[in-house]
């Protein structure tokens, strides 16, 4: 690697195969190893809903020395583990980019079904006997994917020993023979790759600058969420498997018991949220995780949480909807459900991080907020963010406070404890079972300050106001950026307002547009309920035109902003199940900047 140490690194590698080929596992090893070797990595995997069968899987990883915000639309290298799926992706390989493919297929192939016939003149073919190498070394074709990773590593001079460590960790706990066999498959691939005569020009160059203190850690949005939970001191977790949130529970299941915390897989989402509320009532920091369909099931219980003023954190990773929709495709269409999906007036706090580091922040802060504002908090992720991998740098000091609960100040025993006491900020001092002399009942029925059922008109009016007003103070919650502006300061021609995972693409597009001389800036909104209206108004005042790109059909955020500000915005909506393309946003910015003729000139 030393020979290219001065060169910048920006390589995007796509591995494409059929479900069951080990495509995702191969991509995982690649990105883990490269992050460990000190590179910035952004990665995102696409896979089908079936476990096996014949769906397409693609693992893409962009390995860079500089900070970037999204994947590139062109990859530098495509590895095909299944030609039928990879052939449509050949055009996404750049000029002098490489296509690596199986050169020893199992059966006879009809004309045109082998990927080698689809390469453009300027793309470079590397045919490799993945299957034969795997069978030769391990007596089975199963390790083709590992051979492919080894080949990549050898071909690009990546550090083999770091891959060994990553593979060793991935297979820890498995029989030693299996690990050895996988390592030998890697080595055989590596050797083949290293011996291959190189024709490509992109190289792994410098790693990221050493300005920062701590190491980069490669993690997915879900993993960062889990780290946030753990750093915030999560006590209990109840969940039910659902793509793409399942991995949150899986990772917590590994980590929580180590800290004396408890996790239970309940029989369904209904009981998961119920148990979460119960644990919150008992004073625990409790959470659940689900996706849109699970959130729909939980709506009823969410209402209970709002009504009974119980803390609960729900991580909701969105996927294509409605209904079962597209379980393994990304979308940002559960915003309405999260904001509005409840019986009655049941507002709650909603945070939507925009990158992996934000997942960590929002997860931890969600516990603080749930506890402080005594309400369910939904952290709205989506599949692209949950499964996207970035190399992140976690703070050395734990940024989350241990206890944010408003304590009961009165000496117990003197006056009767009012669980729902009206206060200036709307937040009532909260006691939990075990606190002396603070016994009370929570209920889903409308109730008075003491928590007794009460359906008098003025009570419902007052208590409704109390429950909504206490949330407004959440926009000033310390230690979390709930909105932020990037790019040009002052008046700009185009402003882009974004939320969630799409903001990475928005940033890249904004940077490109500024390079083209367009005055523009971008603002991310992290807290979606209640909305930080002040900064949003200020931003919109500065912008000639406002663009809201988001991955849903109904322009849910645009409608939310328009509804809250009364100002029109331009909508850009895509529901392809894939992340938005930078060039689509860029084209829209150009159009809004009145530069349509530039596009025509191109």
């Amino acid at each position, binding site marked *: 690697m030393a020979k290219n140490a001065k060169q910048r690194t920006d390589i995007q590698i796509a591995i494409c195969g059929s479900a069951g080929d080990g495509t995702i596992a191969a991509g995982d090893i690649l990105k883990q190893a490269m992050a460990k070797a000190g590179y910035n990595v952004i990665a995102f995997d696409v896979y089908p809903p*079936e*476990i*096996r*069968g*014949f769906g397409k899987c693609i693992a893409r990883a962009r390995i860079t020395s500089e900070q970037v915000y999204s994947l590139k639309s062109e990859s530098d290298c495509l590895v095909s583990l299944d030609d039928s799926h990879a052939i449509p992706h050949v055009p996404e390989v750049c000029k002098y980019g490489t296509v690596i493919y199986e050169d020893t297929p199992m059966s006879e192939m009809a004309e045109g079904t082998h990927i080698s016939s689809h390469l453009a003149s300027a793309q470079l073919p590397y045919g490799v006997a993945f299957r034969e190498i795997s069978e030769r070394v391990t007596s089975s074709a199963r390790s083709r994917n590992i051979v492919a990773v080894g080949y990549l590593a050898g071909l690009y001079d990546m550090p083999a020993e770091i891959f060994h460590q990553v593979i060793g960790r991935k297979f820890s706990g498995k029989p030693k023979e299996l690990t050895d066999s996988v390592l030998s498959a890697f080595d055989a691939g590596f050797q083949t790759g290293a011996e291959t005569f190189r024709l490509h020009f992109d190289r792994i160059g410098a790693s990221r600058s050493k300005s920062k203190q701590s190491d980069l850690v490669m993690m997915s949005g879900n993993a960062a969420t889990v780290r946030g939970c753990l750093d915030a001191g999560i006590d209990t977790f109840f969940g*039910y*498997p*659902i*793509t793409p949130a*399942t991995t949150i*529970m*899986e990772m917590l*299941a*590994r980590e929580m*018991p180590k800290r004396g915390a408890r*996790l239970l*897989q309940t*029989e*369904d989402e209904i009981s998961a949220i119920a148990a979460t509320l119960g644990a919150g009532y008992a004073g625990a920091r409790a959470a659940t995780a689900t996706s849109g369909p699970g959130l729909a099931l939980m709506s009823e219980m969410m209402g209970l949480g709002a009504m009974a003023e119980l803390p609960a954190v729900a991580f909701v990773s969105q996927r294509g909807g409605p209904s*079962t929709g597209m379980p393994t495709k990304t979308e940002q269409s559960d915003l309405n459900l999260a904001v509005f999906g409840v019986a009655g007036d049941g507002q709650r706090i909603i945070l939507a991080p925009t990158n992996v580091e934000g997942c960590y922040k929002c997860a931890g802060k969600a516990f603080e907020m749930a506890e402080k504002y005594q309400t369910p908090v939904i952290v709205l992720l989506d599949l692209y963010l949950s499964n996207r991998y970035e190399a992140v740098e976690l703070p050395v000091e734990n940024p989350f406070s241990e206890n944010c609960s408003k304590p009961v100040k009165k000496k117990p025993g003197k006056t009767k404890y009012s669980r729902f006491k009206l206060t200036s900020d709307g937040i009532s001092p909260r006691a939990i079972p075990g606190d002396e002399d603070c016994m009370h009942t929570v209920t889903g029925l409308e109730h008075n300050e003491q928590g007794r059922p009460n359906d008098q008109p003025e009570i419902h009016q007052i208590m409704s106001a109390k429950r909504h007003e206490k949330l407004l103070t959440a926009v000033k919650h310390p230690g979390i950026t709930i909105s932020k502006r990037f790019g040009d300061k002052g008046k700009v021609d185009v402003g882009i307002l974004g939320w969630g995972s799409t903001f990475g693409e928005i940033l890249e597009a904004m940077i490109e547009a500024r390079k083209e001389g367009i005055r523009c800036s971008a603002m991310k909104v992290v807290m979606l309920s209640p909305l930080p209206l002040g900064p949003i108004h200020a931003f919109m005042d500065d912008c000639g035109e406002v663009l809201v790109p988001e991955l849903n059909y109904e322009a849910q955020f645009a409608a939310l902003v328009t509804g809250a500000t009364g100002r029109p915005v331009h909508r850009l909506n895509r529901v392809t199940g894939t992340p938005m393309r930078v060039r689509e946003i860029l084209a829209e910015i150009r159009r809004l900047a009145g530069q349509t003729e530039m596009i025509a000139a191109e």
Partner: protein
Amino acid sequence: MMNIHQPVYLEDKLEEVESSGKLAYRSQTLPTWCPGCGYFSIVEGVSKAMTDLGLNQKDTVCVSGIGCASRFPFFMNTFGFHSLHGRALPVATGIKVANDDLTVIVVGGDGDAFAIGGAHIPHAARRNIDITYILFDNGVYGLTKGQTSPTSIVGFKTTTTPYLNVDQPLNPLMMLLSYGASWVAQAYAGEPHHLTEMIEAAVAHRGFSYLHVLSPCVTFDKTSMTYKNLGMTVRPLPGDHDTSDFAAAMAAAQNTDLPQLGVYFAKERPTLADGLNEIAARAEATV
């Protein structure tokens, strides 16, 4: 393996399969289960049973929830309903109540049935709806990639029980017997001949019939309910087992270490339709 030296000639076998007519019960879609999955025996067993019983495809509805096993209706050439997770029985109830002449076969997995859908089973059983519930038990969640299920054994390691499962598994046979199912039997996916016999008997039974099928998950269970383990432990119910003796059925159902295959309990009693007819009759009488 004494049949090993019996000659097998492809031509003869193809002729046999062709003339049996079982292929007419299959759809054109190749099943998408993991190769080796016990669930393949559902299609094979149900097709053969329907062939033998001479059921008409158009008068049959296959209903399922969500889960690996619940893919089943897609692979059958009958009416099918692939509903929501755990909600297959309510859907089937609706269909059966609407049209008593239909043969309704519900297929589900252990998670679909005993976790999210657990609340529905007792009610379907006690009402004695005339449907057949074939439960493919593989003791693990396959579709969400290997989590523990209500029938996972103690000590089973899954992604959500990394420190081993501590929960006692359910005993579905005892549950169903105690829920009042009027026909309860057990089969094993690795013995397709017996499975077919059982499906035939289950469909033929008038009332709620529950067939528990032990079916290995080849992808996520490499240690407990494998073909190897089950193959060594399963055995037939004793020849003198009395299917009308509830206590004997409960006693036999307790033996989970050596699962016994065959009909545990069978007793005719009025079905939901009978009850509805009776209510209708009473109502008529008040006019």
